[in-house]
């Protein structure tokens, strides 16, 4: 595959990811509405919102406010370009787990930079909470994935998917790890009880407080893309990705809607409760899981 073709595939992947996640979050809004005995909006409401916002006049708080947003979206698009979905991968051999995590983190940093420069302390508090939450869920999650990488002897996501086709899904290799990773994903997605960094009633949606118009529109696109990255990473790493597109979509929709529905019926943690929570049970389970792996060692290769 030549370079242009790869870039085209990558861009196609990013576009696909955005369309997919925006649709699914629309559907999820409907599902949650039914859980809460409401009618809910139409499934394409999120597309409507984004288009409307991109065409509205808005205010800005300076160049860093806009620049940070661009970095956020660029990080999300760049990361999504590397994501393997159903056997299609744009840059074969370079879909490296560490790279994806760090490039995605650049997007997060851009978002933090942008909302921090708005001058609203509520935004800064929100970012502070978001980062604190980050240090909670990322440590067990990354540790598990490192165990997985050391088990499969590769950090390429598409290769891990391939190997799972041979040896069964990783959820069978590390069942406890799967549970922990799902709890981490729940925090990553910011679903209740881990939506402390948004907390609309308390800190006015935290990092989002100052956004409107095209800035909010860009932020929503970046958000949908990063949710796509998080969920498809999870599906690829633990549920064997998918040989075909429908299989992948099914797993993807199941995981996202499950997490959102769980979020719909829970209350909210305080931020230090989030950290305490993650550093008790999930870390303990992770260590047990790694010890179990070490005992029945061997690996695939």
């Amino acid at each position, binding site marked *: 595959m030549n370079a242009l073709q790869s870039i085209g595939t*990558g861009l196609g992947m990013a576009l696909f990811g955005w369309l997919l996640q925006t649709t699914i979050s629309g559907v999820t809004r409907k599902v949650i509405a039914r859980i809460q005995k409401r009618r809910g909006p139409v499934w394409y409401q999120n597309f409507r919102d984004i288009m409307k916002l991109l065409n509205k006049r808005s205010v800005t708080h*300076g160049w860093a406010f806009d620049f940070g947003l661009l970095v956020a979206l660029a990080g999300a698009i760049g990361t999504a370009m590397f994501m393997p979905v159903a056997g299609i991968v744009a840059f074969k051999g*370079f879909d*490296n787990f560490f790279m994806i995590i*760090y490039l995605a983190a650049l997007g997060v940093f851009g978002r933090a930079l942008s909302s921090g420069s708005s001058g*609203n302390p509520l935004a800064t508090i929100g970012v502070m909470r978001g980062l604190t939450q980050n240090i909670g869920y990322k440590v067990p999650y990354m540790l598990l994935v490192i165990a997985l990488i050391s088990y499969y002897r590769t*950090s390429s996501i598409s290769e891990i998917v391939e190997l799972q086709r041979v040896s069964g899904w990783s959820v069978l290799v590390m069942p406890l790890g799967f549970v922990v990773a799902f709890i981490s994903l729940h925090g990553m997605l910011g679903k209740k009880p881990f939506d402390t960094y948004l907390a609309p009633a308390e800190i006015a949606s935290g990092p989002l407080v100052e956004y409107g118009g095209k800035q909010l529109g860009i932020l929503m696109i970046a958000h949908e893309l990063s949710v796509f990255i998080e969920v498809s990473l999870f599906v690829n790493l633990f549920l064997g990705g998918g040989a075909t597109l429908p299989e992948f979509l099914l797993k993807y929709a199941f995981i996202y809607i499950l997490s959102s529905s769980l979020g719909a019926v829970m209350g909210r943690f305080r931020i230090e409760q989030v950290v305490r929570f993650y550093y008790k049970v999930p870390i303990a389970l992770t260590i047990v899981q790694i010890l179990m792996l070490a005992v029945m060692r061997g690996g695939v290769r």
Partner: protein
Amino acid sequence: MNIIHLILGLFLAGIAAYGIGRLKPAAASWLTLAASWAALLILFLGGDTLAGGNAWGLLAFKMTPLGWFFSMTLLFVYSTNTFFNLSVPAAPTRQAAYPMLYLISLASTIGVFSAENWLALFIFWEIVLWSSTFMIGFGKPGRGSIIYFGMSLLGSFMMLFAILVMGTAYQTFEVKGALMAAAQSPGPALLVFLLMLFSAMVKLGITPFHIWMPEAYHEAPDHFAPVLAGGLSKLGAFTALMVTSFLPASTLMAQPWQVRGLPLLTYILLTVSAVSIVIGTLMAIKQEDAKKLLAYSSVANSGYIMIGMLMGTPMSVSGALVHLLAHALATTVTFMVMAAVARQTGTTRMDELGGLLHRMPITFLAFLTAILSLVGLPPMLGFVSKWLILQSLASQGLFLVAAAAIFGSIGSLLYAFRILSTVFLGQLKPKHRQVREAPAVLLIPLLLLSGVTLVLGIYPYGLVQYTAKIENSLGFADTVQITGLSIQGNNGNLNALLIMGAFAIGFLIALGIFLKAPKSRKVDLMDTYTGGEFIYSPELYSYSTNFFAPLERVYAGLPEISRLYEALANRVRDLGTLVQYLFFSPLPSRTALLISVVTILLIWGEAI
């Protein structure tokens, strides 16, 4: 031109700077600039084949790839920092001494990296220590330089002891030869290994020897702190790498215990480095002063360097070397930015700053580059090194250490955002409305260093290739591999250019969407959503003190190592009091008793 000329020239320039500084201080600063840039040029053009030499048959010098890499790193830090010497004058009485010490310490670092003889290396090491101690003392009043000197002295004693042990046991002081001799015959090799490594850990600021770092960095003059942080602590990495590669722990105690294919000793030292990462991170998160925060981040980053060197695989050592350079560049920029901020506003306390991005945009961009590199995000150099180190950890399956590395990596996002947010983002304080961008002479080094960080982050291949050469010269069986534009890891490849390309494409798309959408109106920083409150005072409308309070509450009970040192100091003081009470008493009877005991011991001591 050989190394001796270079070192001697810098020494003489230092002495000349003192004389000139007595007459005309500004000229002395210009001399430091000219001399250090000339030295950088000579070393750069000479490459690692720069001729060595032998002075009076006593001091032999030879440039090795490793020595060249370290010398270039330090020289670059030193010479870029000379611009700050121009702009930020030291206190009047020290105007002559500072340029002299600056150049002498620079000359001595080159001496450390090229000496062929352990004793010569030690002498240069000590000159660096002494001169930097005085330069730290030129800053804020406090115990910083004393703690620095005390801790470093501990390291120096350990090093000297190790050198003398090697000298007596193996009859040689040759740097490489003595270590190789030790690797061959067990004897006191373990002692040498530990002492050398401990002395390196003192310099690198690894827990539990890190306490000097925050104090010294905080109190050092703002225009010297970049060199101290970015340059001098790297001396430790040099000796540590020499020891771990010529005298690897695997030859010392391969048996009986091993953890994941590594000797137990290595595993313990790895754990110590991991603890260093965790402690550095946790302490950095809760500092109120920007310079102290950065100092603790150095503690954490030294942990990564140490881990890379201790693992001793080609990839991890490459990671350590790249991280060393990345950290040197980035931390120098961050301290320089703090010096610039302190110069323009008069403080480095984070709660007194804020919103400076609207006043010092170029400084802010340099700072952003450096901070991204410190956190290890692409497309900066710090990402390449973090990637290499994490890859090595994953393939070795060292989960405990990996957990610490991840924790430090995510934690660095926290403190990096804290310093960025409280200094540059948020509300601009009314008293800083008149603050201007730092003068051009200070922006030159900032842009130079952050530019190198960015360029090497996008195109790290030459650098990684050079680390392979270093590994070759250190006697590694195989080295880190690069094919085309991808760095081959044990379980994955890295193509930094591709990552940058994907990011750039994403950025262009984002920019397209942004420009296509209607233009937005610029509003004042105070024009924000407040939930119906009326706000008038920007000073009160910011969030900076106790930034991560909820997280700090989680680990509030963490014991501090400095307490232990204080307790130890108190015990020593008590012992001194006891000795004073016993032997230096005004009572004649006690003196008489003492004299008789000594006399008895002198006469019959042999028999007893």
